[in-house]
């Protein structure tokens, strides 16, 4: 970014640093920089310490490959979670999203990306070998492929199911279909096809007397 002579070099440096973050445009970067400038010193120190901490203290859990402070991570050490089901996701943020839903009580495996054949991202660039070594555990019964429903996610799920098919583990894929709050009239052909193919039975409503 070109620096105006009206902006001190140190502020310009901070603006430039914020601008490099994803989703931060030049105006937002400027606002954030001036916010830090006006904030109490302790707030700036907290921010700087948090930034350094995240780089110094985090590592990958050697089991699930999620980002963690302690290895193995809390999720892998939780005795309440079953070892029988491993939910495979593309990114660490996907673990947080699935955890928010509170439905999956098994373990996770983070691939750190998805196969993108046209960009030259292949299975060797992801944490696939680590997943395969986990599947050697006889207690693992099911692998849930929770990739994004886009081309890269489909390529990754297709590749993984071909590799895992020979290992005697059940392979499932999270359902595709209409998101909550969407309109059927705007849905595309593939989404509707998936939603109709994987439709579910509606349980008959029970009367108050139980009949």
């Amino acid at each position: 970014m070109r620096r105006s002579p009206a902006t001190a070099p140190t502020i310009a440096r901070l603006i430039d640093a914020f601008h490099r973050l994803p989703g931060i445009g030049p105006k937002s970067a400027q606002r954030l920089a001036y916010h830090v400038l006006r904030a109490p010193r302790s707030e700036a120190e907290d921010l700087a310490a948090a930034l350094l901490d995240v780089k110094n203290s985090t590592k990958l859990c050697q089991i699930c490959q999620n980002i963690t402070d302690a290895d193995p991570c809390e999720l892998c050490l939780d005795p309440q979670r079953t070892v029988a089901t491993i939910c495979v996701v593309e990114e660490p943020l996907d673990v947080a999203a699935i955890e928010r839903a509170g439905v999956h009580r098994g373990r996770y495996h983070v691939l750190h990306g998805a196969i993108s054949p046209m960009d030259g991202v292949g299975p060797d660039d992801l944490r696939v070998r680590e997943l395969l070594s986990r599947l050697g555990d006889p207690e693992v019964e099911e692998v849930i492929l929770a990739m994004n429903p886009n081309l890269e996610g489909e390529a990754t799920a297709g590749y993984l199911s071909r590799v895992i098919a020979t290992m005697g583990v059940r392979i499932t894929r999270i359902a595709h279909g209409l998101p909550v709050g969407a309109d059927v009239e705007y849905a595309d052909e593939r989404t509707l096809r998936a939603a109709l193919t994987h439709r579910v039975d509606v349980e008959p409503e029970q009367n108050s007397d139980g009949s």
Partner: protein
Amino acid sequence: MPRVRPMRTEAIVLRQRPLGDADRICVLFAPLHGRIEAVAKGVRKPLSKVSGHVAPLSRGTFGIAPGRSLDIITEAQTLDAWPSLHDDINRMTEALAIAELVDRSTDLDIAARPLYRLLHQSLDALASTPSPASIRWWFTLRFLDQQGYRPELEACVRCRAVLEPDGNGFAATEGGVVCPRCRSGGLGQPLSAPAFRLLRYMRRSSCEATAQVNVDAATAAEIERHLRLSVEQALDTRLRSRDFADDLARAETLGKRATNAASSGNGQREDQHRATV
């Protein structure tokens, strides 16, 4: 360079890449405009009305308006979703290889009607054929032809002798088949009679007829090698999507190897961790 006024066009989506938090840049290929790069706003949000209509390997009609630095997709409606290209990994791999060829060989905003027709016909055939690789070979031969790199299959590319099926070679650097005499000088790779016949058959046949041919593994590997070399020679680049095809071919072996490693005592880390817990 953004366009001056809005337009509406039919196009095939070749690929996408993320932009910011919620958008994607879509690479479209249109008959009258060639390659178009346009932003699909908000398509990474769950309630986006457009996201399913801008999926790669699909055909649709698109409204495109000039943006500040990039064009913007204002509306999209799918014409062909080709679900089997997404659900079947083999078809997807072949379709991606075709899409990569078009993506790498075309320029922004230059009409390419014959290539668009060829791409549309090939993806349509790929979506239903039982032998997706032969459709890609069929596409590749015609693609090379359209790009001005038509492989010579009738006469020796070196001495112009009429070719017989046996003893020939394929020299991608020379642009086609070499006769046994020229081949004796070490020119090109060996070309078996079945592979020679298949290349000539694909050249003169429709994609439906090509899809009906049964090809043995050795001939398929040979055709694959010769066409890959021809394309890389023509485009002067390595095709990334073919690496994934190689990975996919090795997938089962990798799974079996992992199973063997597990049964011989590896892959038991979780057991150890459970023991410590």
